[in-house]
């Protein structure tokens, strides 16, 4: 319902205020990563320093957490890419009994509150006496990452015209060749966009992870522990700045990729 007139001033001010509200926390975190104070949050900060970035670089627990997060996110994303694409191809190709419930089933892990998924996995781990490990974290993450890939791939498949696939088959290509040479190139950016979102989702996850990680700490869990038992507060802020940067970039790239595909 676009209007040709320009927006009333009051509305513009309200929009500005809401945007300021949305971005205030990021600004504050960024600012406090440079503060000279090592405990407490005085505003305005008494002085600015780059000291905490060096301290953060020397903290081995932080590096371990980061490495674990990257490993988990990579494996969970790969699993989600395979499972999400398979599900999207199945749903797209054929109509079958229970097709609607597949989408619902895939959506469930992110539609239910994280604590439900978390405690559910925790109680399954408890009932089956599987020990907590790297893989229990990965299983939890992959479960809610599948839907992101699935949605992206399915949306792309629905936009691809079937005439290309038909032409390929008419010209004598078999289904695998058609998939390899026709479908896959068209899905490439959707896979990349979905994969980046899944990666960001896994890299940031804290609620489900608290229930599946046992003693291991991913980066968000590390931050959570820091909040409960603080040691060198500004180091937490440096880690937070890093986490924000690490998610802003993939999201921005993923958004670009999806938009570029839409305007084709």
């Amino acid at each position: 319902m676009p209007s040709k007139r320009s927006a009333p001033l009051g509305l513009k001010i309200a929009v500005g205020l809401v945007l300021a509200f949305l971005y205030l926390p990021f600004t504050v975190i960024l600012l406090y990563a440079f503060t000279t104070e090592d405990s407490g949050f005085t505003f305005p900060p008494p002085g600015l320093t780059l000291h905490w970035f060096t301290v953060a670089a020397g903290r081995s627990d932080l590096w371990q957490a980061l490495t674990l997060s990257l490993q988990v996110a990579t494996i969970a994303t790969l699993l989600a890419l395979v499972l999400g694409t398979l599900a999207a191809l199945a749903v797209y190709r054929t109509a079958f009994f229970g097709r609607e419930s597949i989408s619902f089933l895939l959506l469930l892990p992110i539609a239910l509150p994280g604590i439900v998924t978390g405690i559910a996995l925790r109680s399954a781990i408890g009932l089956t006496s599987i020990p907590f490990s790297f893989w229990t974290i990965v299983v939890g993450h992959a479960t809610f990452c599948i839907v992101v890939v699935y949605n992206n791939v399915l949306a792309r498949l629905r936009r691809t015209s079937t005439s290309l696939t038909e032409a390929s088959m008419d010209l004598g290509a078999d289904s695998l060749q058609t998939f390899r040479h026709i479908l896959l190139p068209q899905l490439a950016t959707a896979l990349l966009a979905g994969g980046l979102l899944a990666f960001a989702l896994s890299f940031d996850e804290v609620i489900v992870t608290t229930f599946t990680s046992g003693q291991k700490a991913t980066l968000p869990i590390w931050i959570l522990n820091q909040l409960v038992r603080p040691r060198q507060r500004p180091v937490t802020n440096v880690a937070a700045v890093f986490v924000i940067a690490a998610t802003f970039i993939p999201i921005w790239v993923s958004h670009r990729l999806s938009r570029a595909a839409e305007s084709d």
Partner: protein
Amino acid sequence: MLVSLFKNLYPQSPRSTFYRRSVNFFYRHPRLVLLLLLAAPLFWLGIVYLGSLAALLIQSFYHLDDFTGQVVRQFTLATYGELFTRANLDVIRRTLTMATVVTIADAILAFPIAYYMARYASPGLKGILYLAVLMPLWSNYLVRVYAWKLILAKEGVLSWLIQQLHLNGLLNAVLSLPGIGGPSLSVSAIGPFLAFVYVWLPYMILPLQAALERVPASLIEASADLGGRGWATLRWVILPLAFPGVVAGSIFTFSLTLGDFIVPSILGNSSFYIGQVAYIQQGTAGNIPLAAAFTVVPMLIMTVYLIMAKRLGAFDAL
């Protein structure tokens, strides 16, 4: 005859006969392909995930033996009975109140920006605003909650701002209110409220914007033609049509607040919420049955909520 003709056309075909055979076989059996495609995802979500949910439900019918501290694997409703103790009912009531208030605040905050995006923003600006709303949604939730701890700290940004505006009296008056007040903003009920409103706001903006986008321009013109002023059109035409969008957004804000345990454990006045109790019961208390029963509460509430939302047409607005 035809086959040999093709063979002569493509004499260098590198594919083995086994490959040909299997490709042809799968082409003739689309149901089998479907089954193979679905096997892995269905195994994962059907067995691993639904299995876990089932494990959760089963556990909620066990109970913890008070003397031994062991979970007794025997069917009982005793654990659900514990939910109805005064303290636990208080927790449920408090969480529901918080979820409701947060949802209303989010709807009010989301409206201007959603309305601006749908009605006034140029396509380019709309893309930028869309990304501006999406970024906070996708960036680390824990970091965003933590930022509010910094903002609301006693000597933090908000206190500084209030001091600059000479509103200290007002702040103290708010903080001395029974029930929601406290020694400082971050340890009063206002702390978790602000953090909740903040972290779930994008979930309200996006569906509301989508709903507003679909309000036909002709209806707005008709309202104006019939003498409806700006406010009248907003109140009687736009708001009713955007309402399903609000309901769609409220599914997220409500459900996410119900299950959260991070926000109230970082901010607030140490009064418990459902997610926190479930977290503590499964962790330090080792009472997984009670934790499971507590997570069934938000699931039940959300089921009822979703049925109501469907009646209100929220799913068409998603």
